[in-house]
């Protein structure tokens, strides 16, 4: 069966510090990968998605970047965090079939102080 991991689960960082969040998927090959951000109790905002190694599509111009160094690894980064980067970050994967279900990881709660 497939599983998706995210770490860390929670993170408190000062403004201006760097960020690296990691997501890995097990049990599947060549998945589509996604990064979302969610404000408290609200809907999900798609940040980045990837259909293959090294292929990243950015949805919202901002302080963040994403990379996919391996088939089942997706990394979200920032060089300098802003207060507005606080939120709940979710990684998801889907098979490479159109209009298919997305499976979400447990999320990372990021607080920027």
């Amino acid at each position: 069966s497939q599983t998706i991991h995210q770490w860390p689960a929670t993170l408190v960082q000062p403004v201006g510090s760097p960020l690296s969040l990691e997501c890995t998927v097990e049990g599947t090959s060549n998945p589509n990968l996604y990064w979302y951000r969610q404000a408290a109790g609200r809907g999900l905002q798609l940040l980045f998605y990837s259909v293959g190694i090294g292929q990243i599509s950015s949805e919202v111009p901002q302080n963040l970047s994403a990379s996919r160094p391996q088939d089942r690894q997706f990394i979200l980064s920032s060089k300098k965090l802003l207060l507005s980067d606080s939120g709940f970050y979710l990684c998801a994967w889907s098979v490479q079939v159109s209009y298919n279900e997305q499976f979400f990881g447990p999320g990372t709660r990021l607080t920027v102080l």
Partner: protein
Amino acid sequence: TQLLEQSPQFLSIQEGENLTVYCNSSSVFSSLQWYRQEPGEGPVLLVTVVTGGEVKKLKRLTFQFGDARKDSSLHITAAQPGDTGLYLCASFSNDYKLSFGAGTTVTVRA
């Protein structure tokens, strides 16, 4: 990007009562998904509806897709505390990209 409007934003009911939440758009949905998210966890898919007028049932949950494929509803019969969560509707803006509504927070009191 398709805009999805969900209502109400919050809903608090007593155990055993029924509830309905709505998802609407000004444009036609290619398909629509409903997810439920519990606090501190990722969303989990409940259902996908594709055909206008479609009705799907998942135990005490009934999902309807409007004939014109511009609206959908989720009805829960005899709600239980385990139904508490954030209910999100989502639609595909292209083959892979999902756009989410803002969600309805449902609280079922024991």
